[in-house]
């Protein structure tokens, strides 16, 4: 057992590798030497544009989205004690998609940079509605009602989104990549706009993390151990909502990352929720960056949205894991 390379160590090595790939590889090939020149302020205009205007900002966006999805997914699975829970369960992604659909259809919004406020608003509003409708009155009760409410509200919003898109198929053809989840053309302004949400979400996640191990044993046990369930729930809900809303606002609804990452991580690092949370954050970053890089070169001269790549990677991994029942239990 001690001879096996630690998955965590491998993951730590994977981060710089993914960052390097994200800066070096793209749909417009730039030799590594020119990339270096562009990074240090030299090089020709094209290389500087490709590296400094395109790859660096979307790498930053990818890091932020990966962190947010990894952490919110891990929190969601711990909080609901469901190994297949997704951070979108509280209506966050559906709310973001619905708001962006409204923006495109009725407010004439066309650029991903302008979607961000709509997405944040929609995501937060939808999750507030879900929490208001489904919050358990007794903190010892598992949050099943919350999850069901989230699924119901999400389904309603998804239906409305489809309705809007059917009334204006042309506009929605233009925003297909957003709906798949993508980092194309995400400038620093987009990431910066949601940074406050993500910082707040990360703080809430850090504050609730210590109680997660007790909650994983059962909510009655946690209360017996002196965990303040109301405070812990509030922090967990705030963290999940803020992080998932931030991720959806930057990239759109990226599929599977928040679901698969914590799942795989749990299988690798064991049952300590604090470790799962931290490692999920790092693994989320690696998965999103690699998916984005694959998407950039998959359909030249165009690009495939990262969300389609994560679905391609995520779905088979999920099926494999679901079949290993020993590893999937919480």
């Amino acid at each position, binding site marked *: 057992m001690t001879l096996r390379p630690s998955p965590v160590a491998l993951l730590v090595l994977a981060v710089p590798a993914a960052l390097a790939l994200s800066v070096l590889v*793209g*749909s*417009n090939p730039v030799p590594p030497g020119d990339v270096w020149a562009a990074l240090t302020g030299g090089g020709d*205009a*094209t290389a500087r*544009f*490709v590296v400094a*205007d*395109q*790859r660096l900002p979307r790498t930053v966006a990818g890091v932020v989205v990966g962190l947010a999805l990894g952490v919110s997914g891990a929190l969601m699975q711990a909080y609901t004690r469901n190994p297949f829970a997704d951070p979108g369960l509280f209506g966050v992604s559906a709310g973001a998609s619905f708001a962006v659909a409204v923006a495109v*259809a*009725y407010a*004439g919004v*066309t*650029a*991903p*940079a302008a979607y961000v406020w709509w997405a944040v608003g929609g995501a937060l509003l939808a999750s507030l509605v879900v929490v208001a409708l489904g919050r358990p009155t007794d903190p010892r009760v598992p949050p099943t009602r919350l999850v069901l409410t989230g699924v119901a509200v999400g389904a309603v919003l998804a239906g409305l989104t489809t309705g809007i898109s*059917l*009334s*204006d*198929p*042309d*506009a929605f*053809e*233009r*925003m*297909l*990549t*957003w709906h798949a989840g*993508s980092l*194309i*053309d*995400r*400038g620093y302004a987009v990431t910066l706009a949601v940074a406050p949400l993500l910082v707040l979400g990360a703080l809430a996640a850090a504050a609730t993390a210590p109680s997660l191990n007790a909650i994983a044993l059962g909510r009655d046990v946690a209360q017996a151990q002196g965990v303040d369930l109301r405070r812990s729930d509030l922090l967990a809900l705030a963290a999940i909502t803020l992080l998932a809303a931030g991720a959806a606002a930057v990239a759109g609804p990226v599929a599977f990352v928040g679901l698969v990452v914590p799942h795989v991580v749990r299988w690798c690092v064991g049952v300590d929720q604090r470790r799962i949370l931290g490692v999920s954050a790092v693994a989320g970053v690696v998965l999103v960056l690699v998916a984005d890089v694959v998407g*950039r070169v998959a*359909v*030249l*001269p*165009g*690009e495939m949205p990262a969300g389609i790549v994560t679905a391609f990677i995520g779905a088979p991994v999920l099926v494999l894991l679901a079949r290993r029942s020993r590893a999937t239990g919480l």
Partner: protein
Amino acid sequence: MHLPRLSRPSRPRPSRRPRLALAGAALAALTLAACGNPADSATDEGGDDDREVTHARGEATVPADPQRVVVLEPVQLDTAVALGMTPVGAAVLNEAAGVPAYLGDDADDVQTVGTVTEPDVDKIAALRPDLIIGTETRHSALYDQLSDVAPTVYMASQSDPWQDNVRFTAAALGDPEGADELLEGYQERCDEIAAEFDTEGRTAQLVRPRDGLVTLYGPTSFAGATLECAGFTTPERPEFAEEISVDLSPERVLEAQADLVLVTTTDVEDESTIPPSITANAASFPELHLVDQSFWITGVGPLGGQTVLDDLERILSGS
């Protein structure tokens, strides 16, 4: 389940037959004497009022001079309005926006009957059309339902050369010569602009921002063909041999360069609708103009073509 279906096609007829019979009797003396076509009138109830149209589904008998036409494709709406045969109903690309504004006042009264991809059969039936024109590639599944409402003819595909689709629509409406006139007018306007601005040998590229990606339209697209018709050349790309457009990663946006670059938008006054990847390379796009996508992209047809050419002339005289 079969009974109501069988009885449906005959539903409109009982109300029409007495009228037809009356009208037929009243007109018989006049028309027979005037046109001298007794062979037709002997065949069935339609008489002179009918003609045959060959379309994507075979042959259809349609009124010789249709009065209440419903069209399900933008090029059909544009052509019908251009011919002065404004339809009573049309499927539109965007229900919120309705009938495109570039069609002018004539088209104000056209009722929308759902979207081009999802026409609403009930709304169509409520307009009591006497002719429906649709598109096989889009509305194939609706043919039987629509035929129950009114004689229906289908254009083969919206991807066919648009001028062929204009000719088909005019023929379905009973005015094939009208199409030739409209298309000649378009060609003359092209030649005028080509001569006036000496466009020969200059390149032009239409760019459509699409959620971060940029889509370049090629010479077989409606806008690309119109630019070429006006004397411009589209910068060559291997993809244009088979596709009307190609999606580019923003990293490759410099491949969109041309002597004249036109970027489509919903608001030509709003410069923020130019994609950031193009703004970042402003020096590489010295001749760049925002153009209205409602006719540059979706205005397929003779009126849309004239509107595009007017816009092109405005841009060229301004620069």
